[in-house]
């Protein structure tokens, strides 16, 4: 019999709506967390996963209340405990690591002091013992030279290092249970892989039970022993990680796994229709009914119960789960092939573009001169054909958005020329650009909450380009808006909605509609799916692909997610510290030989499969600014050739597939080295 750390019995948490109705956001949750076990809780935003994790430490957010049920820790219900009693448990016995560790560290206190504070609060160690313990903790989370780290302030650490400090602080009280809420979301791929590896190590080393909350099945797959899938406030699936990810017997999980782009597949993943219902809108029947491809009439009126399937050791909430027992993983891998037809017709030519954020001195401003020998983005040369999708990949800060902004004219390039449609030079000053060129290049942003004016209706939002570029008005304008909305699969009744009344996916569709309303030639997409839920991401990607087929639009698609990029792009350019490392057709970029940086990025991709582990080849350090000379990747390169990398800018080499790599290692040597390990 396994030792139980926490048992949740029939827990429901909810709030009272303005109309006085009681609305549940967690419905009858029952599960147990065993000693030494890591449980992944996965679900999209609004599924109640964070509420559940907070309840596990006896915390119910302001405005919410416990409707029924209990969270038993050491035979006490922590939801009924007084604050005084909770103080002895929170931080000591049950610790939490929040999503944004950097923000949860106090900015003006040194790291060592903050850990000491945690130790003082959560343990009974004396001062001398605590000093030893600080080093021990920093060592445990594998921060280099603990003594120096302890003397630093949070802002002097990288995101990954801050997250490690947060882990160290959480471990201070030697907890029985560690709750992690999206601990790696927002970190770069390589950093994320390192942090997950550390968490795995700590789980084994200390025997602490962990609850890992995330929307990212890739991360969940790497750390969890058991996975709980939540949908609309209910547990729909609960079982061992391999069963859940390889033979998902709930239609939601099944569809979700199919909709995730994977490196091992080519083409776009299938998309799931619709979005998760809002709390309180489901009165009867299965909450997944609207989106379920296995739904039957009985699902509409009857709510399925959580049922234990003993041969799979899994609990599932679905009447038809048997239909999915036989569907093995080949089936979950199907994806749509993308039609690619390219005509060699150059639409954009970016040549020798450098961009600097350096502050101009007054004199330089007068002379209209930007003097910066080591600019943020340097020497970018890319030609893009009509109808092509070019992806820019790289970690945050690699200059992807900066390049898009300079194409859009929002940032002045320091050097270089951008030509549109073969020979028309685009001025680097937005105000001097011809209206027709402004129309031709449209932007779509990462987060529709930021890119749509919250005080405008959908109609007003989509009307802006139509009024500005085509001078439409009255009925003609309205008809055109309806037509454009139809193209992004939004009905006429959306016209009067405000962004806050739309789901994430719908908002992004409105942003897409606004861009397409201008009849653009080129659309610049900046992380357009990063803020969306996985189940919605595939739908937006598919929409972009269909629109491209219909209109022959060219995309420049910026993303940090290599699997998404693989699914949608024709050509990929890899950036490190504002310098191009590799550019080529996407099939060949994802094959060896690769630039050592591309290799690191590809190795760090998290697949939603517990048997595919990320390869951690390079350190996850973050560099402040690009090196003055030599190769931009010299600071982190696992294949560093020698002194030459530090002194000379590497040359471009092109392999037989047309893949250009900028490295001092001979392309064949690179290929041999990479294939041999």
């Amino acid at each position, binding site marked *: 019999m396994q030792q139980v750390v926490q048992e949740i019995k029939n827990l429901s948490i909810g709030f009272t709506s303005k109309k006085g109705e009681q609305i549940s956001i967690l419905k009858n949750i029952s599960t147990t967390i065993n000693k030494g076990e890591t449980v992944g809780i996965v679900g999209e935003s609004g599924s109640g996963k964070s509420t559940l994790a907070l309840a596990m430490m006896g915390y119910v957010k302001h405005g919410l209340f416990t409707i029924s049920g209990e969270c038993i820790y050491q035979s006490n219900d922590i939801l009924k405990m007084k604050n005084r009693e909770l103080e002895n448990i929170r931080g000591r016995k049950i610790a939490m690591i929040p999503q944004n560790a950097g923000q949860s560290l106090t900015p003006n206190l040194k790291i060592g002091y903050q850990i000491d504070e945690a130790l003082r609060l959560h343990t009974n160690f004396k001062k001398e013992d605590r000093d030893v313990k600080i080093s021990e903790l920093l060592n445990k989370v594998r921060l280099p030279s603990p003594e120096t780290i302890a003397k630093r302030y949070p802002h002097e650490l990288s995101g990954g290092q801050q997250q490690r400090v947060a882990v160290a602080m959480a471990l201070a009280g030697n907890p029985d249970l560690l709750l992690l809420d999206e601990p790696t979301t927002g970190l770069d791929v390589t950093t994320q892989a390192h942090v997950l590896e550390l968490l795995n190590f700590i789980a084994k080393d200390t025997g602490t039970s962990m609850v890992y909350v995330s929307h990212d099945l890739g991360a969940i797959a790497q750390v969890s022993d058991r996975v709980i899938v939540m949908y609309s406030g209910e547990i729909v699936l609960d079982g061992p990680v391999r069963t859940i990810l390889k033979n998902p017997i709930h239609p939601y999980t099944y569809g979700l796994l199919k909709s995730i782009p994977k490196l091992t597949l080519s083409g776009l993943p299938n998309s799931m229709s619709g979005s998760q219902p*809002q709390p*309180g809108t489901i009165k009867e029947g299965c909450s997944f009914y609207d989106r379920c491809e296995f739904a039957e009439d009985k699902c509409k009126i009857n709510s399925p119960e959580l049922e234990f399937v003993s041969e799979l050791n899994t609990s599932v909430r679905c009447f038809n789960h048997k239909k999915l027992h036989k569907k093995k993983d080949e089936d979950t891998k199907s994806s749509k092939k993308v039609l690619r037809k390219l005509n060699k017709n150059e639409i954009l030519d970016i040549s020798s573009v450098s961009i600097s954020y350096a502050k101009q001195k007054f004199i330089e401003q007068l002379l209209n001169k930007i003097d910066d020998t080591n600019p943020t983005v340097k020497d970018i040369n890319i030609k893009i054909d009509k109808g092509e999708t070019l992806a820019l990949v790289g970690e945050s800060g690699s200059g992807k958005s900066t390049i898009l902004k300079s194409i859009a004219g*929002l940032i002045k390039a320091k050097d270089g020329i951008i030509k549109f449609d073969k020979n028309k030079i685009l001025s680097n000053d*937005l105000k001097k650009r011809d209206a027709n060129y402004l*129309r031709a290049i449209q932007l779509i942003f990462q987060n529709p909450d930021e890119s749509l004016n919250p005080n*405008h209706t959908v109609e007003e939002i989509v009307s*802006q380009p139509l009024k500005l570029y085509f001078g439409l008005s009255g009925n003609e304008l309205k008809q055109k808006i309806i037509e454009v909305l139809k193209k992004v699969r939004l009905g006429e009744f959306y016209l009067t909605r*405000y962004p*806050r009344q739309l789901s994430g996916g719908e908002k992004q569709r409105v942003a897409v509609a606004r861009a397409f309303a201008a009849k653009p030639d080129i659309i610049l997409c900046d992380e357009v799916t990063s803020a969306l839920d996985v189940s919605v991401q595939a739908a937006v990607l598919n929409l972009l692909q269909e629109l491209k087929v219909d209109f022959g639009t060219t995309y420049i698609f910026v993303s940090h997610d290599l699997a998404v990029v693989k699914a949608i792009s024709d050509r990929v350019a890899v950036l490190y510290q504002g310098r191009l490392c590799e550019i080529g057709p996407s099939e060949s970029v994802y094959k060896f030989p690769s630039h050592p940086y591309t290799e690191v990025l590809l190795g760090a991709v998290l697949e939603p499969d517990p048997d595919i582990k990320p390869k951690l080849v390079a350190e996850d350090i973050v560099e402040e600014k690009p090196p003055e000379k030599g190769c931009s990747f010299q600071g982190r390169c696992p294949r560093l050739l020698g002194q030459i990398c530090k002194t000379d800018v590497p040359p471009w080499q092109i392999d037989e597939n047309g893949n250009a790599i900028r490295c001092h290692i001979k392309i064949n040597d690179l290929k041999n080295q990479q294939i041999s390990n």
Partner: protein
Amino acid sequence: MTLVIKQEKPKSTFSKIVEIISTMASRPSGLIGLIILVFHVTLAITSPLYAPHDYKAIDPSLMLQAPSSEYWFGTDSLGRDVFTRTILGGRTALTVTFFGSLIALLWGGALGIFCGLVGGKIDDVVMRIIDAFLSIPWILAMLLIVSLLGTSTIVLIPALGFFYGKGIVRVARAATHDVIAKDFIVSARARGHGNFSIIWNEILPNVRDAIMVEGAMRWSWMLLGFSSLSFLGFGVSPPTPDWGLMISNARGLMSFAYWAVLAPIFGLSSLIIGINLTADAFAKALGIDRSTKAPV
């Protein structure tokens, strides 16, 4: 957690106003504020129709009479009816400060949005100039202006409007700063919209609420300021009835003719409280939290 109400209908401006007012009235403090404000405004508009006595009729034989059935609030040192003068005494103050607040709203809002939008050096310089101007004690500056240009409303309205616009500049500037970093502004710029269109279509709808709430708050402060001027003899010229002036004239007689001073004090303070409560409820109805900033 945000709850999406799917079937929300688009609202006309009128129904939005109705909704805001009914939200304001749904709290006791908001309801009381609204009632007081509506009462004062109605009184100011209609009082000349039913004022029982002539406000300027001086009758030495009736000096400092205690309240009676004929003179409800008694009479003042010149034998004038205090009740008549009290119900008429808010008219000038309300008019001057209402239009003064509008002016403060306009210039403060415009300059604040401008500073927020351009940012950088220009923003710094403009804010510094305003700070310098307004670090002069306003009452001294007002006295200077009034003694140079006279006390007519044509002078008072813009002068008060100018001095009470500073807070609005700050609020408008801060609100604009928050909005300006958002991608929808970047998006509008990238499309090629001009500055005017960006201000009108993108910024204004997002900062309007904050500016209006600040304006409403300024109104009550300005009322206090205006009454202080009258009290010092620089606001309304006699014999026009005005609370500040009435308080000033009667304050020496407090010990034996309290009615002559209590009535205008009651009028003035109830109006200030009414405006404050209304402005607070207005802010809450618009979802703006002012709890951190208390009026002076």
